[in-house]
């Protein structure tokens, strides 16, 4: 995967210490920003992206040409109002949209590939805090994230409590469950089973493990949707033939069903914009995430030092990070005496609800940011 589009980025002037004990030198953090930073430098909002997200939260994606992934939420007059706030969104380390990751060049001029150190959610946050240091932003008005972005928001609150006045964590968890890890392992095995993966050393080769990465994405994509959502969208409907003939059973293994066709499309589209090794590293970081474990086994201790206001939002159809996980976080925040709001919103789209049209979420986000 080569990058042939410009990104704005900052190179951190210091080594990044990692949870593994290794360090990441010359780390580059690619980011986008919107709205004006005020003179007091206290109107900044950091948005943390999800597993396969990127810094293009409200601007056109340079590869796909699609609008920003949270375009509906971020912009002038929108819930995260860029007329009021200076919004920053950075690509996490380990990813592949301009921040240092496995596809980046190591000091020997060769891509890191599997020599890239295994990172954690906290390591990603260290990179983000490094960026804030370089941007001379001491304290964020708010850190916001959904899914893996929510993990980063919680991790920032726990490990750098002085850096954010508000923490908004949506459709997320404080720890990856066995089921979460299991789904990720399916994805990783799909990638590593692709002969083109070549132990991660495919950057100079003609082929890359697109087939494996597409399967990984297909499996993961199912976990982002609800059963009712899939049924409503596709049911058992057949896909029309390429020649326009109405769909029917082919008694073969083409994409007979619309849902198959949809997943194949999602999978192959994904390989155009994402690096397979990044997928391995970032899913690993999520699997290692257990905020309580980092803080003596007690989640409440993770938030002991926090003066921040918290808002935790879950969705009733999200079975990837179900409401019980959010309640677990709320329980800990209450025990720590933190100011916390929590609401389970009703939306039909499963885990992906946080990215989609849920007007109640817009109201909650706008209200929480304005307080």
């Amino acid at each position, binding site marked *: 995967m080569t990058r042939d589009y410009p990104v704005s980025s900052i190179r951190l002037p210091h080594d990044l210490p990692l949870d593994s004990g290794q360090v990441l030198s010359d780390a580059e953090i690619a980011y986008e920003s919107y709205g004006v930073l005020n003179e007091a430098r206290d109107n900044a909002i950091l948005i943390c992206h999800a597993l396969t997200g990127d810094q293009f939260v409200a601007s056109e994606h340079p590869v796909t040409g699609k609008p920003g992934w949270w375009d509906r939420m971020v912009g002038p007059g929108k819930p995260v109002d860029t007329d009021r706030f200076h919004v920053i969104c950075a690509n996490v380390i380990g990813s592949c949209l301009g921040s240092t990751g496995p596809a980046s060049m190591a000091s020997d001029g060769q891509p890191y590939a599997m020599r890239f150190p295994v990172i954690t959610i906290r390591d990603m946050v260290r990179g983000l805090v490094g960026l804030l240091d370089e941007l001379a932003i001491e304290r964020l008005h708010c850190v916001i994230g959904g899914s893996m972005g929510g993990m980063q928001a919680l991790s920032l609150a726990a490990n750098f409590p002085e850096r954010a006045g508000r923490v908004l964590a949506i459709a997320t968890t404080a720890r990856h469950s066995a089921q979460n890890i299991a789904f990720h392992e399916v994805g990783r095995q799909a990638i590593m089973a692709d002969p083109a993966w070549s132990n991660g050393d495919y950057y100079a080769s003609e082929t890359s493990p697109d087939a494996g990465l597409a399967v990984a994405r297909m499996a993961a994509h199912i976990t982002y949707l609800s059963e009712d959502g899939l049924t409503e969208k596709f049911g058992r409907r057949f896909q029309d033939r390429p020649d326009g003939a109405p769909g029917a059973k082919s008694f073969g293994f083409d994409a007979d069903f619309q849902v198959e066709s949809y997943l194949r499309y999602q999978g192959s589209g994904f390989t155009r914009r994402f690096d397979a090794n990044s997928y391995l590293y970032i899913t690993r970081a999520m699997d290692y995430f257990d905020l309580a474990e980092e803080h003596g086994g007690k989640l409440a201790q993770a938030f002991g030092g926090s003066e921040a*206001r918290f*808002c935790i939002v879950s969705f009733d159809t999200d079975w990837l990070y179900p409401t019980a996980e959010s*309640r677990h976080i*709320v*329980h800990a925040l*209450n*025990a720590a*005496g933190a*100011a*916390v*709001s*929590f*609401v*389970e*919103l*009703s939306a039909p789209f499963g885990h992906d609800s946080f990215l989609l049209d849920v007007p*109640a979420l817009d*109201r*909650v986000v*706008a*209200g*929480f940011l*304005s*307080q």
Partner: protein
Amino acid sequence: MSQHLRPDLAVIAEAIAPGARVLDIGCGDGALLKTLRDSKGVDARGMDIDAEQVAGCVAHGLSVVQGDANRDLTDYPDASFDYAVLSQTLPMAKRPDLMLDELLRVGREAFVSFPNFAHWRTRAALLLGGRMPVTRALPLTWYETRNIHHVTVDDFRELTRLKGCDIRGCWFFAGERSLSATAANLRAEFAVFHLAR
């Protein structure tokens, strides 16, 4: 300050000390919390079971948790709050006696307001009409109401005695009108008690 508040909430808002930490259980649209925050500098938190109410509160910048008071009060450590408020929610509790214990565990003091089932209108509806009362204070039919434990002023006093609660104050209302304590069990539609242990 509290001209728009329901009368029971208005006396509670009046009685709460400025700057206190308050948990309003069953906070609904957050009217009390908002008043306390805006006019008394109170660290005001809420809990409500209804997601839409909670979303509305958060949209107003209030710290409110969606939860079931029968279950989720255990999240809070002892004496986390100066005051725990339970307004018009007691009859919906699975076990009002245990709820009272929880109120005075998470709060050093508590305010409890409830509709008085011994109000003369209620008595009349049952005695003369022979039907479950549907009144101004209890507007829903027996099959619609979420109240599962109707309570009277005298019953509540008895419960506080059994629990060893100290009654710091009580207020009685008929509609918007404030009443004296005389024959409150017959005359009051609503009661508010200020309790401590």
